[in-house]
């Protein structure tokens, strides 16, 4: 998945497990950027009575690098607290919840937002209400309206939202984790002699009907751009790098007097996410936990995993005869400068007409957004591969088909950006897991926070 349960340790800590990051110029407010970090993967909507919530013991952050050093220059911190109206009932709510201050809502969450810039902190808002989870027609009868009240305006003309949303990331998990099966091409899979597939099939969106928890912030553009020249697509200062982290305090012990965990010590980063699928697809199993603890500035140590991605060697092996040019490229040992640019430094000027998102030579896994590229009037979910300069890997919009984009890039379609003599295999521009944005049943919103209304437990039982 993008980053759901992608590393051994964080897969045991879903509350702190970042799943996706989005960063884009807001289509309906183009003088702002929207940043979204999702946590708590694969939520079955019926998962009560303790419905999903953010971790009060977790420090959630969205970072912005404006000078290309792979370290945060601006950070938005989010801290949550949970309050029970009645600890003696087992119920999440004791009647219909029709407002954020409903007396029927027992287990509520609130949060604070703090902006940190070059070491200086400013609290932008506090005691901000999250919406409840979407339970069903009796408990949350008008969920869309209820959740929209949880979009808060805070200091600086900023909007924030933190709460449950429908999963917007679509991927055929069941197939891709079955030895990289891609259903639309599965008859071409080597199949280990098992003859499991005889014809192509449609993709299955494994995340359909699942929810996540989103932290979304919409910030006036002027507050996230550096002093360096910006405003034109060719300006280096127009490009910002975005990633999210979750941190926990280092020491934890179960306090049997209070029947809860207590924490102490410095914050330790336990989860990180910039580009989708980076840790998931590129980093070896033995290094994934380490990767989650590091800043993007340290990603040089993983550059070889990008230059020689394991999946690029697997595709020709698993789909014999389908990727001969990719196979030859892999066997040549040529470093994938195209992937290094896309994922680690950004694409310099002069490669794609009218576009760059280069942040400098420091190799770091961050989403690179050229803020001077306006939102597309007719967006392509294939982003740059679809000729849409406002889509991934220029930032990432909620509907971008990052699985197909990255599959095709790894399969070789982007090699000609750096080597005109290379001819991608015909299959490279066709490979996909067979899903599109239309595979997301909830759809998306046209306005902040853009991710769809979460699926309710009543209409989407978990079993």
């Amino acid at each position, binding site marked *: 998945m993008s980053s759901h349960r992608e590393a051994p340790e964080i897969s045991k800590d879903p509350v702190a497990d970042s799943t996706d990051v989005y960063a884009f110029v807001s289509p309906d407010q183009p003088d702002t950027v929207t940043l979204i970090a999702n946590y708590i993967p694969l939520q079955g909507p019926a998962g009560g009575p303790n419905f999903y919530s953010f971790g*009060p013991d977790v*420090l959630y*952050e969205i*970072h912005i690098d404006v000078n290309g050093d792979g*370290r*945060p220059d601006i*950070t938005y*911190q989010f*801290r*949550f*607290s*949970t*309050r029970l109206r009645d600890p003696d009932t087992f119920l999440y709510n004791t009647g219909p919840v029709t407002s954020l201050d409903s007396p029927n809502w027992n287990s509520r969450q*609130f*949060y*604070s937002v*703090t902006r*940190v810039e070059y*070491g*200086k*902190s400013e*609290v932008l808002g*506090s*005691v901000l209400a999250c919406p409840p989870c979407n339970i069903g027609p009796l408990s949350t009868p008008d969920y869309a309206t209820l959740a929209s009240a949880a979009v808060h305006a805070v200091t600086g003309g900023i909007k924030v939202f933190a709460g449950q949303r429908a999963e917007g990331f679509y991927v055929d998990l069941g197939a891709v984790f079955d030895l990289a099966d891609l259903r639309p091409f599965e008859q071409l899979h080597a199949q280990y002699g098992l003859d499991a597939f005889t014809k192509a099939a449609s993709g299955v969106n494994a995340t359909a009907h699942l929810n996540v928890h989103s932290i979304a912030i919409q910030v006036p553009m002027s507050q996230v751009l550096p002093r360096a020249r910006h405003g034109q697509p060719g300006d280096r200062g127009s490009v910002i790098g975005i990633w999210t*982290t979750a*941190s926990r*305090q*280092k*020491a934890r*012990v179960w*306090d049997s007097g209070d029947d809860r965990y*207590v*924490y*102490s*010590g*410095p*914050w*330790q*980063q336990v989860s*990180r996410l910039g580009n989708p699928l980076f840790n998931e697809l590129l980093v070896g199993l033995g290094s994934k936990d380490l990767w989650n603890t*590091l*800043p*993007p*500035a340290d990603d040089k140590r993983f550059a070889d995993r990008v230059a020689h991605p394991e999946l690029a060697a697997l595709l020709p092996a698993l789909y014999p005869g389908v990727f001969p040019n990719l196979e030859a490229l892999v066997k040549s040992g040529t470093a994938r400068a195209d992937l290094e640019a896309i994922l680690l430094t950004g694409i310099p000027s002069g490669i794609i007409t009218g576009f760059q998102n280069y942040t400098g030579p420091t190799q770091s896994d961050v989403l690179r957004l050229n803020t001077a590229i306006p939102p597309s009037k007719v967006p392509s979910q294939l982003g740059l591969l679809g000729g849409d300069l406002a889509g991934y890997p220029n930032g990432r919009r909620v509907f971008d088909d990052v699985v197909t984009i990255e599959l095709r890039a790894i399969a070789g379609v982007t090699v000609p950006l750096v080597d005109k003599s290379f001819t991608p295999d015909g299959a490279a521009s066709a490979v996909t897991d067979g899903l599109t944005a239309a595979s997301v049943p909830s759809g998306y919103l046209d306005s902040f926070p853009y991710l769809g209304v979460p699926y309710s437990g009543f209409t989407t039982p978990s079993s």
Partner: protein
Amino acid sequence: MPSSHTDSSPEPAVSPERPPRVSRRSVLRGAAGAGAVGLAVAGGAAAVTGFTRQDQPAAPDAAPAVAGAGPVLVYLRDTATGEMDVFAGTGQTRLRNPALVRELLRAIN
């Protein structure tokens, strides 16, 4: 990666009042109030042979950065050398005190 700053969030449920930054003295004082381990640390304080204050990891901290405002946890890293980490607030201090560790081990064995 947590950045190097502190958070002065007023959110009461997650950010209690923030006392001064952690210091060796405050760690020991906090440890003294933390039950058996605290007593042991306090009793052994005079015998501390040396300590190193670890570089604070880049850490925004919305939790109290002080001993006394929360639990104080001690991790004996190496019983042979007496090296231990003391966690208090959002601070971490490394101490080396073989005598104290011997005393603790005697107490729990």
